[in-house]
C-alpha cells in the first residue's frame, strides 16, 4: 500500500491579527531536522515556533538509513520504539562486482548497546512520528503552510516575514534556526553560498513496492551487467518498499530519465517485472558546505548548512547530530547560564563534523564514479584484487557509513583509559541493571563516577553506574576507577582516573564556555 499523505491542519497564526510578542526561537522548516530541533529544545524547556511552507510529510523515501546515534536521539524524542518497530533493522552489506559478490560485511548488532547499527525507514514515517510528538508538546508552536519570505537581523534579534494562505505577518526571535534543507531559502535570503565540490554525476533514485522478501541487506553493485557497467544499490525499507539507486552518468537528461517508460525497464533488469513504481527522483552529487554555520542570530542546521553525496547515510544522520550539538548550547545561552560564545563551539564542532562527512563522501564518490585515467585504473584494480586478496576488500568503497564525529577537544584525558571513550566521543552505551547507561545520563552536565566517590563539593548530578564487563571494557580498561564528565549531548568532555573538585570544576567551566 502506498503511503497515505494526510495533510496537517493549517490554523491562521495570531501574528496575522496583532503583532506577536518576541519569541525565543523560530525554526524554519519542519522536516526531520527542524522537528528534531524543536523537540530537543522543548526537552530543555525552550519554546519555539516551527514554520513549514507545506502541510504534508516528505514526498518519497529520501533519507532512509538511520544510524545508531540517530536512534539514540529518537529515543530522547520518544519515537525510537516506533522507528524500531516499523523500520527494517539491518547489519549485512553485500558488495558485488559485475554480477559476482566479492565480499560482504556485517556491522553486527552489539548486545551491549540498546540500539542496532542501522534501521531503514522512509523519511515520511520519521516525519510523521516526529510531527505527532511535536503537536503534543506545548512548547512547540508548529505552523503549517507558513512560508518564510524574508529573514533579517539586528544585533539584538532576528526578524522573519511569513506568508500564509491568509496573508503576511512578521515574527521576532532571539534566534532563527534554518532547517530548510539543501535548497534553503534562508541561505539564499542571507546571500550565502556553499563552497566545495560538485560532481558531474547523476543518480536515479526510486522507491518500488514488491512482495519479494529480499533480506533487509544493503546490496551494492559495481559494473553490474544489468546496468551497463554503472553502479547500483538495492536496500529494503518498511512496507515492502525497496530503494533502488542507479548511476546515470552526466550526459543523462534528468527529465527524460524520470519518465516511467524509461525507469521501469531499468528496474526490471534488477528485480524482474513484478513491482510498482512509487517514487522517482534524480540527483547530482555534491559535497559542499557553508563556510560558517552561525551568522549572528541565524544558525544553519542540517542540509541548509552542508550537503554530501549519499551512500554514507551522512545527510539525515549528520543533521540530527547538528541538532544534538546545538540544542543544549542554545538552551544554555537563552537561559543566561552560558555566554553567547558557546554557540561558536557549535560552529567549530559541526564544521569539523561536516568536513569529515564531506571527506568520506568525496572519497566514496570518487571510487564509485572514477574519472578516466589513473582514477579508473586504480578503482578497477582494487575491485579485481578484492576477488583474490582479503586486504583489498576493505579498500572497496561503496560508502563509509555514518558514525558520530569525535570532536577535537583539548580536555583533560588519561591515556590509560580506553580509546573508545576518549574526550570528544559520544559516550558509548552499556547495559545497566534496569536499562541502559545512555538513559541514565539525563539532560544535564553529569559526572560519572566509576568505582569511586565523586569529589566532595561539586554542584552537578553524579551517577555511579554499576560495574559490569561492558562498562569495564568501555570506560575503565585496566584502570581501577575513573571519573567521566559528560556534556548534555552525551559527549565526553573530560576524564580522569583520579581528580579533585577543583580539576572537575575547571573542566565544567571550559565546557560552558565552549572551549
Amino acid at each position: 500500500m502506498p503511503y497515505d499523505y494526510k495533510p496537517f491542519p493549517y490554523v491562521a497564526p495570531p501574528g496575522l491579527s496583532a503583532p506577536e510578542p518576541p519569541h525565543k526561537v523560530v525554526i524554519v522548516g519542519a522536516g526531520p531536522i527542524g522537528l528534531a530541533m524543536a523537540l530537543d529544545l522543548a526537552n530543555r524547556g525552550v519554546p519555539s515556533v516551527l514554520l513549514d511552507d507545506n502541510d504534508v510529510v516528505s514526498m518519497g523515501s529520501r533519507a532512509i538509513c538511520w544510524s545508531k546515534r540517530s536512534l539514540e536521539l529518537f529515543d530522547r524524542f520518544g519515537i525510537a520504539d516506533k522507528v524500531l518497530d516499523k523500520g527494517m533493522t539491518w547489519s549485512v552489506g553485500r558488495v558485488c562486482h559485475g554480477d559476482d559478490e566479492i565480499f560482504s560485511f556485517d556491522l553486527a548488532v552489539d548486545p551491549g548497546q540498546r540500539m542496532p547499527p542501522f534501521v531503514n525507514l522512509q523519511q515520511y514515517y520519521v516525519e510523521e512520528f516526529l510531527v505527532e510528538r511535536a503537536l503534543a508538546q506545548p512548547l512547540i508552536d508548529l505552523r503549517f503552510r507558513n512560508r518564510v519570505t524574508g529573514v533579517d537581523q539586528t544585533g539584538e534579534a532576528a526578524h522573519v516575514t511569513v506568508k500564509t494562505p491568509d496573508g503576511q505577518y512578521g515574527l521576532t526571535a532571539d534566534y532563527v534556526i534554518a532547517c530548510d534543507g539543501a535548497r534553503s531559502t534562508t541561505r539564499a535570503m542571507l546571500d550565502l553560498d556553499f563552497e566545495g565540490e560538485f560532481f558531474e554525476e547523476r543518480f536515479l533514485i526510486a522507491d518500488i513496492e514488491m512482495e519479494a522478501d529480499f533480506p533487509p541487506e544493503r546490496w551494492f553493485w559495481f559494473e553490474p551487467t544489468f546496468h551497463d557497467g554503472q553502479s547500483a544499490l538495492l536496500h529494503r525499507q518498511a512496507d515492502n518498499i525497496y530503494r533502488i539507486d542507479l548511476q546515470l552518468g552526466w550526459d543523462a537528461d534528468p527529465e527524460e530519465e524520470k519518465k516511467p517508460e524509461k525507469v521501469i525497464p531499468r528496474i526490471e533488469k534488477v528485480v524482474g517485472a513484478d513491482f510498482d513504481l512509487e517514487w522517482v527522483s534524480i540527483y547530482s552529487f555534491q559535497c559542499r558546505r557553508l563556510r560558517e554555520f552561525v551568522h549572528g542570530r541565524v544558525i544553519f542546521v542540517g542540509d541548509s548548512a552542508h550537503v554530501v553525496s549519499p551512500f554514507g547515510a551522512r545527510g539525515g544522520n549528520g543533521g540530527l547530530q547538528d541538532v544534538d550539538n546545538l540544542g543544549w548550547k542554545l538552551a544554555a545561552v537563552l537561559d543566561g547560564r552560558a555566554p553567547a560564545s558557546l554557540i561558536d563551539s557549535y560552529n567549530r564542532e559541526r564544521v569539523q563534523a561536516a568536513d569529515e562527512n564531506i571527506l568520506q563522501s568525496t572519497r566514496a564518490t570518487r571510487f564509485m564514479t572514477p574519472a578516466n585515467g589513473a582514477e579508473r585504473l586504480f578503482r578497477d584494480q582494487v575491485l579485481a584484487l578484492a576477488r583474490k586478496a582479503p586486504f583489498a576488500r576493505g579498500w572497496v568503497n561503496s560508502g563509509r557509513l555514518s558514525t558520530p564525529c569525535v570532536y577535537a577537544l583539548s580536555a583533560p584525558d588519561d591515556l590509560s583509559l580506553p580509546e573508545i571513550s576518549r574526550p570528544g566521543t559520544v559516550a558509548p552505551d552499556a547495559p545497566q541493571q534496569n536499562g541502559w547507561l545512555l538513559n541514565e545520563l539525563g539532560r544535564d552536565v553529569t559526572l560519572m563516577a566509576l568505582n569511586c566517590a565523586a569529589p566532595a563539593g561539586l554542584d552537578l548530578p553524579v551517577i555511579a553506574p554499576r560495574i559490569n564487563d561492558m562498562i569495564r571494557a568501555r570506560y575503565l580498561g585496566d584502570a581501577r576507577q575513573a571519573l567521566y564528565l559528560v556534556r548534555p549531548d552525551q559527549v565526553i568532555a573530560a576524564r580522569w582516573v583520579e581528580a579533585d573538585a577543583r580539576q572537575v570544576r575547571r573542566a565544567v567551566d571550559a565546557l560552558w564556555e565552549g572551549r
Partner: protein
Amino acid sequence: MKLIDTPNLDDHDGFYAELLAAHRGLSEAQSHALNAQLVLILANHIGDRQVLSEALDLARKR
C-alpha cells in the same frame, strides 16, 4: 625519513628481471593493471602510511 632509499634488496637484478618477465606479452592496459595491483599489494604489505607518503614524494620528485 623512514623510507629506505639506500640499497636494501639483495638480488635486485633478479627482481628487475622477474618484474619485466611478469609484463612480457601483456598489452599496455594489462601492464598498467599489473602495476596498479602491485602498488596496492606492496602498500598493504608495507603497512606504514609515513613510508608510503615518502615513497610517493620520491616517485614524484623530478
